[in-house]
């Protein structure tokens, strides 16, 4: 296990470095000059040159990349071209919104998807099994921003139950108010995400329901619930956990769109603003942090899978297939 952990960590760092280099190069390939975004109509060429000097976009690319990497190693993400504020602390301030949003939405999606997916599989021949199946299929086709706008129209504009967007100025000082602001975005992401999760849970359960070992357990006298509990769940959990890892990462990225709909000051809106302003340090910072989060989630999902499934552990322990 120790060797596995070591290898996985090295792989993680390597991926991160490759991602950082790729990000840097791709951003520089985009047309446009960040200095232009800073100036208004009427700017003289001298003013543009001065702006470029100030933000350092006149330096050779390799030099810019080197200093950014060196900063990254010190956990310093640089300073925004536009706001002139350090990027790291601002990302931290935004995570206060994005992390709870992601985790709550993910948790809610799992709570919806597990029972619904199970019932949709277990009762796939009944009318309600078919309805659940159909609804989840529909859910996959509906874009998140549309669900968000629908929820805003009903719960914020019509019923006046929840705010239409925004986040308290003092963040989590009053947890009730913060949660209120997150309610609609959380439900939006959870609905979209549970739709696809239901499909996975359903197909994993169907596999288990049709399996020989379950039939054997029943034949040996186990009740359906008993057989499901002892043999079925664990088997069904393996593919579901690996999907959950991917889905959690997707939620994190899906927050980008949903934060914009609800004007939440999270990582997603920071990215959108950064792109609009050609603010390379901000874009790079947000993407590096998100990449890191996605890689870590994948890593964690792998570990959990190994804990559930002894077959996977055996492979690694023996070092041979």
């Amino acid at each position, binding site marked *: 296990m120790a060797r596995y952990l070591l290898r996985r960590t090295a792989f993680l760092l390597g991926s991160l470095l490759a991602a950082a280099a790729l990000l840097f190069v791709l951003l520089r390939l985009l047309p*446009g000059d960040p200095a232009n*975004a800073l*100036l208004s109509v009427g*700017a003289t060429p001298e003013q543009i040159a001065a702006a470029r000097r100030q933000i350092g976009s006149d330096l050779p690319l390799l030099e810019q990349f080197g200093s950014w990497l060196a900063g990254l190693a010190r956990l310093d993400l640089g300073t925004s071209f536009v706001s002139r504020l350090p990027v790291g602390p601002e990302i931290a301030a935004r995570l206060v919104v994005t992390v709870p949003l992601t985790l709550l939405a993910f948790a*809610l999606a799992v709570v919806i998807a*597990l029972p619904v997916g199970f019932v949709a599989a277990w009762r796939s021949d009944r009318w309600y099994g078919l309805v659940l199946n159909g609804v989840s299929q529909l859910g996959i086709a509906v874009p998140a921003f549309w669900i968000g706008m629908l929820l*805003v129209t009903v719960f914020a504009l019509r019923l006046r139950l929840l705010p239409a967007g925004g986040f308290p100025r003092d963040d989590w000082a009053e947890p009730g108010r913060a949660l*209120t602001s997150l*309610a609609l975005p*959380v439900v939006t992401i959870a609905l979209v995400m549970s739709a696809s999760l239901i499909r996975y849970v359903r197909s994993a359960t169907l596999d288990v329901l049709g399996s020989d070992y379950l039939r054997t357990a029943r034949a040996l006298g186990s009740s359906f619930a008993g057989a499901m509990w002892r043999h079925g769940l664990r088997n069904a959990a393996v593919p579901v956990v690996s999907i959950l890892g991917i889905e959690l990462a997707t939620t994190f990225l899906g927050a980008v769109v949903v934060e914009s709909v609800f004007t939440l000051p999270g990582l997603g809106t920071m990215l959108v603003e950064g792109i609009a302003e050609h603010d390379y340090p901000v874009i790079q910072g947000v993407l590096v942090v998100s990449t890191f989060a996605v890689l870590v989630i994948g890593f964690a999902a792998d570990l959990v899978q190994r804990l559930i499934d002894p077959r996977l552990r055996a492979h690694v322990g023996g070092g041979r297939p």
Partner: protein
Amino acid sequence: MTSKFAGVMAALALVLAACGSGGGESGGGPARTPDAGATIEIGSLYEPQNLDNTAGGGQGVTEAFNGNVYEGLFKLTDDGKVENLLAEGYEVSDDGLTYTFKLRQGVKFHSGKALTAADVKTSIERVISDDSQSARKSSLTAIDSVEAPDDATVVVKLSSRSISLVYNLSYVWVVNAEGKDLTTGEDGTGPYTLENWKRGSTLSLKPFPGYWGTAPANGGVVFHYFTDATALNNALITGAVDIVTSQQSPDALAQFAGNPDYKISEGHSTTKLLLAFNDRKAPFDEPLVRKAVSSAIDDAKLLESVWAGHGSVIGSMVPPTDPWYEDLTSVNPYDVELAKRQLAQAGYADGFRFTLDTPNYDPHPTAATFIKSELAKVGITVDINVITADEWYTKVYKNHDFAATLQEHVNDRDVVWYGDPDFYWGYDNEQVTDWIEQAEQAKTAEEQTELLKKANRQIAEDAASDWIYLYPQIVVAASNLSGYPVNGLNSQFYAYGIKKG
């Protein structure tokens, strides 16, 4: 294990639902007496990029800080007049080249330091310095030197007469630049101090207890920033904001019109939508062709379809709030037959084809489509090329690599750009350049007005650009609010007079 986990999550979900039902805030409860301690929640689409207007802070910082946090020697009031602010008065030498300003006494910066003439000197110098990215830098080029002979006197020497100096100084913030980074903090003399700026979300101002003038009529203001107009209007409907600085979503007006909970005010705007030709290149180097295009487009119809009766049609660059305005809408009237004749006369009887560089944000794409169909009627084919603001800057503004483009020009008194042959549209008429130069060096305001009127008439005669329409300036506020500015001249938004209740 799984069921326990699920249980925890279900509990969390319940907490969420419970919070949801408790947190309802309704819009505008009618409390009748004005509350001087009330905080005014302002909704805006223009978040500052940073807090320094000489370092690319943009429109947002002008809106939040001009007159609220920072003050100039002079103030441009909401109805366009220039008044003394930190200056108590000034004298001009006979040759018009030396301005002596007397400073108001007893003014303190938010840091507690007393305002002196040396601060005014550094404040003006930072706007005209080499590093300055101020949009106003080019209008202050006549300044030769700034001196502070004593604490209460500032002397500005000019290399040539500049009748707009006092007006232009109303945009120069008087700052205390000692020991503070003004891109992320502030030290001004205004009625408010910066309480907190939460990037991507809010900027809050609280009253400055040591303010020299009248204290604000409210207990502070919070600017809430939105990236789209729908979200902004939703916030107004749900009472999360009390007022919207500038309504940019015409479709949304219907939901406030006729509703007693809201007031809609239409003020004077200075924002013009331009179809700007590249006057350097064929076919638009020929005034007759430009006139034909101007006459072929039914501006009123476009305005009606975009703004549903708000805004106004203009015949030239000068908006009605500028002193040198006159109605020139009849110079290039909407007349398709006239357009056809002019095209034939210019040798384009069969029309021609050109690319219209169109910024990708409203209302430009809508306007481009409309112009395309209008010009098709006179045989001109338009290829719409949608570009980002940034591409526009490089391609059109810097490299002059375009045939025609759409752009909104927001400032007042910006007709003077037609006197600069190097400006992006490349209008080059020696007579106009001369008039505009002379106007700046005029001895009296009357003389200046007369010269700029001449220049303005000439650019209309030449159809230097096609001025499509003047935007409306619409402020929507909860009806329990009063004392807010309605014109928002040049993006300013004085918040200190706003009362709630």
